[in-house]
């Protein structure tokens, strides 16, 4: 029981809101919900399918095969000493994580309006759970990458990871922040104006091609018009892809300034997303 003192209110519901009022205590209290949402997402995704979680593997494998055929065999993109298939697989695994975080979180409000319309819980739990369940999916896909890495080493390719591998968790965090941040911004904006949902699906498609997923930055610099090359270069996602391949396959180069630039941009987008999300969650149910 709480004490009987006057004016000792547990919380206040009011119209005024602060720029960021993030109640970490409350989110901690709902940690079980976060866990259960993650579990729900994973358990139910491939229920009533025969291949089940194998679908996690099929999609990146086939995409890598197609990319290898088109970009490397047909398009003559050079990947140095690294087998093109492995090169593409590394890019796609990383890209998939970002893309899934973005796509899934961007529909948070519209997809969950029936829950949000009835019960209160910290709304941010949902995008957080999406990021975590996608991390598991990423983990599984990363395992295939390791499998193929080992396979190619055994059959005689000279592959080596880079000491930068210690940055691996940071890259994951950067991708999560970027996907989650953009996703939260989109989900907030789509509550009132649905135009962005239409935009998002194909924008993500196009974004992949300016993020150096199926080609290395060096090729972009050499073959793209200078303006496009610059766009690709300053795209934080390009830096993530390049950095990812650098530490795993030891190709390309690492630049600390670029790395910090990417980190700061991601952090900024993540915080911006949080603020916008926070402002929207209070009243979105009236406009959705």
């Amino acid at each position, binding site marked *: 029981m709480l004490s009987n003192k006057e004016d000792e*209110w*547990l919380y206040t519901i009011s*119209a005024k809101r602060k720029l960021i009022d993030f109640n970490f205590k409350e989110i901690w209290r709902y940690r079980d919900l976060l866990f259960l949402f993650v579990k729900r997402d994973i358990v139910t995704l491939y229920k009533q399918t025969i291949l089940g979680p194998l679908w996690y593997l099929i999609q990146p494998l086939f995409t890598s095969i197609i990319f290898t055929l088109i970009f490397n065999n047909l398009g003559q993109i050079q990947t140095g000493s690294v087998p093109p298939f492995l090169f593409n697989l590394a890019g796609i695994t990383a890209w998939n994580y970002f893309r899934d975080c973005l796509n899934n979180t961007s529909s948070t409000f519209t997809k969950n309006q029936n829950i949000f319309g*009835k*019960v209160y819980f910290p709304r941010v739990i949902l995008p957080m759970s999406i990021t975590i369940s996608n991390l598991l999916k990423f983990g599984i896909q990363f395992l295939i990458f390791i499998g193929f890495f080992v396979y190619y080493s055994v059959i005689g390719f000279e592959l080596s990871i880079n000491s930068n591998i210690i940055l691996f968790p940071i890259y994951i965090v950067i991708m999560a922040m970027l996907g989650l941040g953009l996703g939260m911004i989109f989900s907030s904006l789509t509550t009132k104006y649905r135009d962005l949902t239409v935009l998002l699906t194909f924008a993500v498609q196009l974004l992949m091609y300016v993020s150096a997923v199926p080609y290395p930055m060096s090729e972009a610099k050499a073959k793209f018009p200078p303006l496009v090359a610059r766009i690709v270069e300053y795209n934080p996602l390009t830096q993530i892809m390049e950095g990812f391949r650098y530490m795993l396959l030891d190709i390309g180069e690492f630049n600390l300034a670029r790395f910090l630039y990417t980190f700061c941009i991601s952090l900024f987008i993540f915080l911006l997303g949080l603020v916008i999300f926070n402002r929207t969650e209070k009243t979105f149910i009236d406009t959705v």
Partner: protein
Amino acid sequence: MSDVILKVEHISKQYRLGLVGTGTLSHDLKRWLYKIRGKDDPYLKVGDTNDRSKTAESDYVWAIKDINFEVKRGEVLGIIGKNGAGKSTLLKILSRVTSPTTGQIKTKGRIASLLEVGTGFHPELTGKENIYLNGAILGMTKTEIKAKEQEIVEFSGCQRYIDTPVKRYSSGMRVRLAFAVAAFLEPDILVVDEVLAVGDAEFQKKAVGKMQDISRGDGRTVLFVSHNMAAVKSLCTRAIVLEHGKVAYNGSTQDAVSFYLSDGNREIIDNLLERKDRKGIGDFLFKGISILNEANEKHLNLLSGELYRFRIEFSTKKTIIDAKIRARFIDSKGQIRFLLNNYFIDTVTLNLEKTDKGIVEYTIEKLPLPNGNYTIQLTCFSENGLEDDLENTVDFNLIGGDFFNSGREQFSKEGVLVEHKFKVLK
């Protein structure tokens, strides 16, 4: 007890009418421009009061406006009002689903809502998995749910299917399971909206019982929204009536219920003389009819089992010999549920003098009608035959009540309610 657990101060909520389109963008831009210049929202000043039946004059409407009340710890507050009076909006704000346009709510306890049961059930998960998920959505922790899992399963009565995906459940079973989870929530303040209207008879009984336990036994603070006056009367210690988004009455449950029931129906039906669709000789004409309760207040929303007087006004052009005034109670399907006739109960014939202001009155001590919409057909016969006959003289509703004094909700919609006794002989 002066321990106020919840304080609602000047809560208002404005909604935009109509569709979201390009026009909304210009309003949004204007609003944003005012905001960066540090001015108030220009649209806060406009807005009609919440009256669903009137044509809107403005694009904005105040769903609720300037609501103030306090709830003390352990109170069960009933919130009653017609459709669209703002009850659900108020509950949505209380349960933090949406935030108010102005005003604030202060609380000393955690609020959990039962706005609609079964929120967040995932069809692919089993009953047990859904208990955990739904419990967590409603704010329970895993350990809390684990401690109560057995009770929840038992209460729902779905033991056999607990490891089956919920999509295989019948809708009734789904509701049972959902209510069971919600019933075992333990917040400081529980907000309940019409959950009692679910499930079959057996389960409703269980649900009402559980609600009573929650409010009486555990001394929990409950805000209860319902159209079921019998349930409000039996559960609540105090009630407020919302009308057009404002608090119209705040006080004891009994008074609030009668305030609500008499609302909007204070006028008497007295225009029957203007009706052209009548049959008969016409020496006797019905003028009006009104329904009064025990306290002689006029009502059109009635409770079964209560005393009502049906006061009938008439005029006669000459003396009517052997008058038989019949009132047929007809339901919405056109079926006659029962009829009243002075000829049945009087031992002498009734003769009516020539008059302009005649009044007769039937009294039913325990109105035996179940919930529904009814109308009364009035007919008068004399020694000359049919004098006057009018269908649909007055429409009224039965909206609850406790005919059998059992505290249970009525389930019957058919026929009439008859007093009876029951005994197990062997």
